[in-house]
């Protein structure tokens, strides 16, 4: 029976059916649910884990492959930068058990800091990359990827995108193949990549690419659909779906399921059969450059944008000149940007940092929202871990401001790649103050357990990194823990540590307010007789508080009773309902 499945869930189903035995990933939107769904299967059949970062996850999968089983890891596009080091060399070693690495790009940057096109990594690492366009293909291509991996002795990249990963469509389930692990045989020419062995391997990789190109000429992944030949479209992934909806039978299509390496004869042959050839691909002109290199004329990025997502209406307008009429509300509508949730433990810290006029070296996570109004208490966000190392750089460059600067980083991000930056602060000695916002979960990606919270992916007890001891062990003498709900205590601690002539770490500890295990207090209420309309409570940017006719009101459906606004309210107008 058909089921509606997210693309990510279909990939997980594909892993299960392909007989995969080891899955190791680090969460990252839009890839996260692959590993979550994979962990719903019996762990004795398919073991899953959250690794501390993508590099560790990828190396774990490589190890499992060498040991003889089909293995997998998933990551978002920027995660592939972290995992690139092992992956580029795994391209040389090849595999024993099949190895597939899924990478989910985020066209449109729904939840990312950049919009890089992962196909460039496939080209750089000389790895085959395949790209499904809906959930059924997610499952089918995942299984095929393992066959390719073992046939061509290579890791295979599975490229996803937000719209494929996070759209549900029909999938038919099939049985799992239970493959016995392949025997491990010592083979240092294959697995020890020192120069003497890596040189012949590089030659083999180039030969493999030629073999894969030959495969691409006539494989089930690359399909032609011939209709009207006035317009020809070469496309891949989600862009295929947009093109089909925009043009239907008015065009013929060459849909490339394999996006690296690209075929030559197939493309030339298709191009000859159509009058006007469009290359429809989001982000970089990867297919287009290849087509032009073949001497085939085509229309590509001179018409279609390099940025953001495409859609059927965008393509209709660009190709057919058709515009869809739409209704107009006729008035400016205030934007509704994402905000920290009501009860978020990060809120008070950011208010305090703003109040103290701090320069805040920020990081990746829910707390990146500390950059938005009204808190606006963040100065930089680059990549995972960059807050800590970036702060060190700032303080080396201009030490006179070091008592004004802090780094903020979440618990999961700190484990991912903040700790190495902290070692640098201790080792190369800068008087840096790092605030670890420990909400005991990987928050932004939707609540994954991590090495610091004492639970594994299955929710079973696991060893928990002791953050205080870890910071001390790397050479930080001043480590203290505060409760971010106590704003006075937090402010005093931040002031004190900023003025110390040595590095320090403040661990701001309070679990995410959305965790099921967190007990909420009753919603707070505003005593309108006492409210003087000073609006101090609005300065913390809580979505549950607003002002109506000059007095503040609290939305009881959102408020979780954290009490931060109560601390802000000098006239004492905000109280808990049970005290009213």
């Amino acid at each position, binding site marked *: 029976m*058909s*089921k*509606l499945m*997210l693309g990510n869930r279909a990939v997980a189903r594909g892993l299960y059916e392909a007989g995969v035995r080891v899955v190791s990933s680090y969460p990252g*939107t*839009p890839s*996260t*649910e692959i590993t979550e769904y994979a962990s719903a299967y019996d762990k004795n059949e398919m073991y899953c884990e959250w690794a501390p970062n993508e590099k560790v996850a990828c190396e774990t999968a490589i190890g499992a492959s060498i040991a003889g089983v089909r293995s997998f890891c998933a990551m978002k596009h920027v995660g592939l930068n972290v995992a690139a080091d092992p992956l580029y060399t795994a391209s040389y070693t090849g595999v024993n058990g099949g190895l597939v690495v899924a990478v989910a790009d985020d066209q449109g940057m*729904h*939840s990312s800091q950049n919009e890089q096109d992962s196909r460039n990594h496939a080209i750089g690492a000389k790895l085959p990359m395949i790209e499904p366009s*809906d959930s059924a293909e997610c499952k089918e291509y995942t299984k095929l990827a393992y066959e390719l991996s073992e046939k061509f002795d290579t890791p295979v990249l599975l490229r996803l995108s937000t*719209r494929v990963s*996070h*759209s*549900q*469509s*029909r999938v038919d389930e099939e049985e799992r193949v239970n493959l016995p692990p392949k025997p491990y045989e010592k083979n240092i020419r294959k697995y020890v990549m020192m120069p003497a062995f890596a040189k012949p391997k590089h030659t083999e990789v180039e030969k493999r690419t030629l073999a894969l190109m030959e495969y691409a000429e006539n494989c089930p992944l690359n399909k032609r659909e011939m209709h009207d030949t006035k317009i020809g479209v070469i496309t891949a992934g*989600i862009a295929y*779906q*947009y093109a*089909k*909806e925009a043009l239907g039978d008015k065009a013929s299509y060459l849909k490339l399921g394999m996006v690296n390496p690209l075929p030559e004869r197939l493309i030339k042959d298709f191009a000859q059969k159509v009058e006007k050839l469009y290359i429809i691909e989001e982000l970089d002109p990867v297919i287009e450059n290849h087509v032009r290199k073949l001497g085939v004329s085509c229309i590509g990025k001179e018409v279609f944008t390099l940025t953001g997502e495409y859609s*059927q*209406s*965008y393509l209709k307008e660009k190709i057919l000149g058709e515009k*869809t*009429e*739409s*209704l*107009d*509300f*006729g*008035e*400016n*509508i*205030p*934007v*509704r*940007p*994402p*905000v*920290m*949730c009501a009860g978020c433990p990060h809120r008070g810290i950011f208010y305090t940092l703003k109040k103290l006029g701090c320069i805040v070296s920020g990081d990746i996570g*829910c707390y*990146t*929202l500390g950059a938005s*109004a*009204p808190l606006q208490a963040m100065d930089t966000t680059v990549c995972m871990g960059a807050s800590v190392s970036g702060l060190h750089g700032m303080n080396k460059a201009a030490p006179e401001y070091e008592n004004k600067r802090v780094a903020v980083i979440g618990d999961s991000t700190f484990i991912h790649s903040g700790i190495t930056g902290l070692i640098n602060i201790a080792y190369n000695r800068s008087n840096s103050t790092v605030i670890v916002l420990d909400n005991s979960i990987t928050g*932004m*990606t*939707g609540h994954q357990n991590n090495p610091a919270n004492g639970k594994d992916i299955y929710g079973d007890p696991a060893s928990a990194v002791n953050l205080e001891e870890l910071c001390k062990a790397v050479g930080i003498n001043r480590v203290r823990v505060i409760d971010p709900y106590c704003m006075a205590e937090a402010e005093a601690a931040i002031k004190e540590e900023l003025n110390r002539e040595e590095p320090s770490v403040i661990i701001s500890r309070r679990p995410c307010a959305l965790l099921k295990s967190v007990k909420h207090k009753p919603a707070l209420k505003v005593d309108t007789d006492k409210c003087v309309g000073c609006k101090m409570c*609005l300065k913390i*940017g809580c*979505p549950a*508080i*607003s*002002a109506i006719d000059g007095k503040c009101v609290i*939305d009881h*459906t*959102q408020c979780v009773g954290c009490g931060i606004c109560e601390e802000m309210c000098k006239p004492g107008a905000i109280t808990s309902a049970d005290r009213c």
Partner: protein
Amino acid sequence: METKAIMIVGVGGQGTLLASRIIGAVLLEGGYDVKVSEVHGMSQRGGSVVTYVKYGDKVYSPVIEKGEADLILSFEELEAARWLPYLKKGGRMVLNTQRINPMPVITGAAEYPEEIVEKLKKTGADITAVDALKIAEEAGSAKAVNVALLGVLSANTEFGEEVWERAIEKCVPEKALEINKKAFRLAREIQK
């Protein structure tokens, strides 16, 4: 059959995702090809959120663009106004009369538009406005507002109560099921 497009819009945390999954399950049982497009990650945190449900003989693109939605289910007034341009001419909008102030309104940088429902009606769109939050609270939990809205929506569909309830059972966690079913029935009755 030509592909039909439904948009579910609201504020992150209101349960739009669950609503779209329930609609998807109903349509799948109805024998249609279905695509449901969701938004996860940062945009979920109290921001403006939108999910798409498309169905027909064969659905290609999972997304809906301006002027393409046959139906918009809005969980909040301001979001209804924001996404109105996505409604097809002659399309229908079912809207919850709840108001949730966005941060620029909270900070005083912008004003929440007045009389949104009346203004929406003046555009010629077919508007059904209901206080689904009240219905949900009557059923026992403000969180059931999403399923209450589905109750309103369901009254005008080709699918019977049983089909909807089976889909609700599939998608709603066990402990919240009774309240959600109650909210669904209350809303469906009011609409009939």
